[in-house]
């Protein structure tokens, strides 16, 4: 246990950080984000950008699944809505990108009310299946209204100009996404420490008791749907900008599964876990590729006989390995490491 910090006021209890060590870490993280565009090459920059976009989506799903305990397989659908919610007004109608970002959150949020209201009677796997169904239906609708969505051909998305700042280079895009990530984390932390966040936790841990405490289950589950899909929609818009092209093909159903896997690998119910999970799962295929290319020509010789499938196998093994050996995810691993650090050299 850390010690030596005694709180004098209620406001201190409310603060997001409670020690200088934590503040120092945050400063380091922010400094890393700020300097990364100058240091990293385009490939790594792109990779980290993708990790951050994925993390935004992961934080969004965490609100619903990690905090409120509602399992969703509809991540893909809300991302698609967010991407089109941004692309259509900005690229087709010429609206300001800021309005686009707002719609990228609001459109999926509105849709989540449509999915949420009828789904509220359902729990667990039954809820998972209606969210899954909604994802398929969203894709179908996008293809069914080509007048609005340009159907299967998709919509090109330019890099935006936000408040006079033209996002042009990969470095700029990195910064834009980093800003969104930081804002998302702040917003999510604020929600977590509000009455809303506590109501979600209460529902997840014991819904009957939550109701007796005055939490209207329907309303707050809907809130979770709305907040979650708003954030997920934003990640969809960012992903669209990242790809510079929005089509339903860009959002395979697998994303829904990967999003859940991310929370598990990172550690359910924690924002840091969602971020770590995103870093891990986006980075994994790259690391595996690097290992493969380290073998050079011998690996290339294997190429046409299917060595790439080995990557898929490894990916699955890592997920299972985590679940089996480290069920609390990377956050659990981190906490264990901390304990060792603070307690060393004695166990207790």
């Amino acid at each position, binding site marked *: 246990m850390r010690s030596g910090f005694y709180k004098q006021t209620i406001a201190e209890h409310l603060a997001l950080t409670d020690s200088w060590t934590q503040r120092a870490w945050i400063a380091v993280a922010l400094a890393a984000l700020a300097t990364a565009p100058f240091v990293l090459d385009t490939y790594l920059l792109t990779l980290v950008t993708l990790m951050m976009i994925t993390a935004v989506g992961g934080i969004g799903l965490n609100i619903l699944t990690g905090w409120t*305990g509602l*399992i969703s397989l509809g991540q893909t659908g809300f991302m698609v809505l967010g991407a089109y919610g941004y692309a259509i007004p900005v690229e087709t109608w010429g609206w300001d990108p800021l309005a686009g970002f707002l719609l990228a959150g609001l459109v999926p949020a509105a849709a989540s009310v449509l999915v949420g209201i*009828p*789904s509220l*009677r*359902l*729990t*667990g*796997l*039954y809820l998972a*299946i*209606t969210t*899954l*169904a*909604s994802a*398929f*239906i969203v894709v*179908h609708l996008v*293809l*069914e209204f080509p007048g609005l969505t340009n159907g299967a051909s998709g919509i090109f998305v330019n890099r935006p100009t936000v408040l006079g700042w033209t996002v042009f280079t990969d470095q700029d895009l990195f910064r834009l996404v980093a800003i969104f990530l930081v804002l998302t984390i702040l917003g999510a932390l604020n929600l977590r420490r509000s009455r809303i966040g506590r109501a979600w936790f209460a529902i997840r841990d014991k819904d009957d008791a939550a109701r007796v405490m005055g939490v209207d289950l329907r309303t707050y589950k809907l809130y979770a749907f709305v907040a979650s899909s708003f954030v997920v929609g934003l990640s969809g818009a960012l992903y669209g900008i990242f790809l510079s092209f929005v089509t339903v093909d860009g959002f395979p*159903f697998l994303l829904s*599964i990967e999003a*859940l*896997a991310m929370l*598990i690998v990172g550690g*359910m119910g924690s924002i840091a876990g969602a971020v770590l999970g995103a870093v891990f799962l986006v980075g994994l295929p790259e690391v595996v590729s690097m290992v493969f290319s380290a073998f050079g020509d011998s690996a290339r010789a294997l190429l046409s006989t*299917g060595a790439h*499938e*080995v*990557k*898929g*196998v490894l*990916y*699955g*093994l890592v*997920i*299972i390995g985590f*679940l*089996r050996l480290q*069920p609390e995810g990377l956050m659990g691993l981190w906490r264990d490491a901390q304990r060792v650090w603070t307690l060393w050299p004695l166990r207790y």
Partner: protein
Amino acid sequence: MNYLIELLVSGLAVGAVYGLIAMSFAIIFKATGLLNFAQGEMGMITAYVAFSIASATDGNPWLTAAGAIVFSVLFALAVERIVIRPMVDEPILARIMTTIGLAVIFRSGTMLVWDALPHDMGLAAGSALVDLGGVRVRGAQIGVVVALAVAVAAMLAFFRYSRFGIAMRAVASDDATARLMGVKTARVQQAAWGAAAVMSGIAGALFAIAWELSPSLYALGLKSFPATILGGLDSVVGSAFGGVVIGITENLVGGYLSPGLKEVAGFVIIIAILMVRPYGLFGEKRIERL
């Protein structure tokens, strides 16, 4: 009129495939509380093994069937023992995600062991055309409907008469209590995995004969999933019914309404039915363990 009958027949055939796989989902869920997301992949692997046996035996249907069934059971038992059972005390979501990890491995593994190409199964009897009073179907399509009927009958008998079936119900209700009563829960769960493997294996192999064998066969699992939900997650027989309903609906929607709607028709039905019956048509209310 003939058009309608043909739509119904082809809907029934594909619905039977969904139904068999849906039953596999349901029986594992019933016995272990687990949803096995790798069920479609396991069916696909059995189909590929059948393909290999058929190639090696010049398309001998009996050897192929026997070999594939034996394989599917052994394979499922191995998966259950090596991957699933050690996770028995983990939270349910973690166990479900484990099966998702398995699914990823199986998909890549299939392409590693075999290839990514489409194949003909090479079983003449299965792909032979049979004329049923003006409606032509393939042998394998009759086979899959028969297999579904047999599976449903077997399950009904099993749960009603077999001690094992009753034990399975007990395990599903309360693992700990059942264990106290002397029910060997591990044995019951193995049985469920085995039965599921046979059903989804038969569905996979027969689908591969009547339609096509390719590494995208696993998607049958995803398509059958709504059938399980429709019937009720813990209702094995209900799932069979759900599969047939979805197969026939898809075909009727494709045949009379917009074919584009066909692929989402199943999902639309699910949402509609769950609104009225939140636990599926035949599900019991108790399953709220997530």
